[in-house]
């Protein structure tokens, strides 16, 4: 099963290498990893999507905890959360096809961010499923280039996984 972990880490150099190294060394499968600053400048947040059964997840959790730079880990899989990913896709589109591509973009509420002579570059955000569907719809036209940010996620409502204890 796929799990989504929200991991708060100290913003030290090398912290990404420590986390990535741990996953590869112990044979854990990372689906995606997105990292960036948080509301506090000393702390970064990683959203890690990892595949594994309960036992693997338990080890992932415990081994991550052993890294001195890891402050807090939250497996939010079972909670209500919002998740988003951003994708940029450069797709073949000569003038004849452009209309169709734009219609697809419309359906997915994607935006055109660049136009070439024979290509269109689109930006789309959404959850996993939406991004996958968007990609599939464009595939027949010939995808020249594709880049995904990896998923970021946040709990819904007043709950949060930040540094402070939950208020409720």
């Amino acid at each position: 099963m796929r799990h989504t972990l929200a991991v708060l880490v100290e913003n030290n150099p090398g912290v990404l290498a420590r986390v990535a190294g741990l996953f590869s060394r112990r044979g854990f499968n990372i689906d995606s990893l997105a990292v960036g600053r948080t509301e506090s400048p000393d702390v970064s947040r990683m959203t890690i999507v990892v595949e594994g059964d309960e036992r693997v997840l338990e080890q992932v959790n415990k081994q991550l905890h052993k890294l001195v730079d890891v402050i807090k880990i939250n497996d939010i899989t079972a909670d209500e959360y919002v998740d988003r990913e951003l994708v940029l896709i450069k797709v073949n589109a000569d003038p004849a096809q452009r209309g169709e591509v734009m219609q697809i973009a419309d359906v997915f509420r994607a935006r055109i961010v660049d136009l070439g002579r024979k290509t269109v570059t689109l930006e789309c955000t959404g959850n996993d499923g939406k991004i996958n569907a968007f990609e599939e719809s464009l595939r027949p036209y010939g995808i020249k280039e594709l880049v995904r940010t990896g998923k970021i996620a946040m709990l819904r409502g007043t709950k949060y996984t930040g540094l402070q204890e939950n208020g409720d």
Partner: protein
Amino acid sequence: MKKTGAQILVESLLAEGVDTIFGYPGGQALPIYDALYDADIRHILTRHEQGAAHAADGYARASGKPGVCLATSGPGATNLVTGIANAYMDSIPLVAITGQVPTSMLGRDSFQEADITGITLPITKHNYLVKDVNDLAKIVREAFYIATTGRPGPVLIDMPRDVSAGETDYTDPGPVHLPGYDIKKDPDPEQVARAVRAIEEAERPVIYAGGGVINANAHVELLKFAEMLLAPVATTLMGLGGFPGNHPLSVGMLGMHGSKYANYAVSECDLLIGVGVRFDDRVTSKLEAFAPNATVVHIDIDPAEIGKNVGVDIPVVGDVRATLRELAGRLQPRLASRWRDKIQTWKKEYPIEFEENGRIKPQEVIREIYNATGGNARITTEVGQHQMWAAHYYTYTRPRTFISSGGLGTMGFGFPAAIGVQLACPGETVIDIAGDGSIQMNIQELATAVSHKLPVKIAILNNGFLGMVRQWQELFYNRRYSYTELDNPDFVKIAEAYGAVGIRVDKKSEVRPALDEALRVDKPVVLDFQIEREENVLPMVPPGEAINNMLG
């Protein structure tokens, strides 16, 4: 007052109570060595950085204090790597300090630059590249704190030359604040209660004790706990000495080269209590068949060890000593146990034994070492058959008296470790039980022992083979001895060339007199015992078998 990074390092080491460090200088470590020149710290110059790391490791294992080693950048740092990995696998508190090229030269493949924090990422508990001299004091404090608390382990501090030469005002960094590092010392009462219930219900409990008992200084608590339960105690290689080997409840070592009665006890128990252990494959062998009928209680300070290799019924996360105390406080002592009696009969029925003949048997040498030292020596070992014989035929009754490379199985560990042990325990007898192969991996440290007048003894069980590998070739590769026979140098001459004493022993009748002589001399001594060449270590669990399915 302004101080250099190197001076701050020295002050910080002193503040941590460090009195001895093991090291080897070089260009990028020059500022550090300059500060050491008139510092109140004893520096032991080994003859190889690997020797420095193992010596610091041995010092830590014998004393319970963190060991400290120091090397220059590049090749000096990479030479520490095996020693660091060794300490990591056996959870030994070690602080390794390396020189590094100046920060402005980092990342440019500068002369003698090696990314040692990158290289040691998977073999350290934590590591640091110091980029600002103002962070140094805080980092050193954290490093010692991390190395020695919780599950101990090595921490590396990489110090670019401009950091060690740079100046700043030294201020005490104060207490450590690490939000991502918390240790749970006291076990959860709920988990303790469950363990108590399981213990009360068990008819055939077995205690499986490891290096965690020694790390936690929990030998007294373990003894008391075992006596309350009347439970046999099987130890791992790392656990030897954590429970008195001569105690009626001791069943010696378990696992691949364990005693039959230890392995039988584990296979038939209905409750297995793992104490400071990690269910290593050299212990469990075939996992599905390990303690098949037992409820498993696992006590360890490191939560990640629980459930890593085997499913655990009752996890108890906490300091081993505190936990054993807590458990003992809630249990009623047993007065009689049929299970214990059964194990006593197994002990009589399946003793660890060997056949004597006219030649020198390795087992006999170890037994004589035990007799000659009254069992009061600190023993270190290299890795191979001799290591297993040292585990079987010498009885360890106190913690920190058997010092051996368990997890990594590092040939070349024992001798430099013995140097560290001797420095930690002046006045005590320290013997490295060595193989003719292993001793040649760090034999250069004879110079260190001689120059520091350390009367360490080396007992080489010389079989002319990489014996343990040969044994596997004999048993599982149809006696095809591929590259395991050794053409050895004259070890007596080597000893003498270094200024140590060398004694060759090729007759049975000379074993004890030679040992007595070696113990009498107040110098390093190399004993070259010409033993039976193709003796095997038995009993043995063949690879992939259940542990009660033993050869021999």
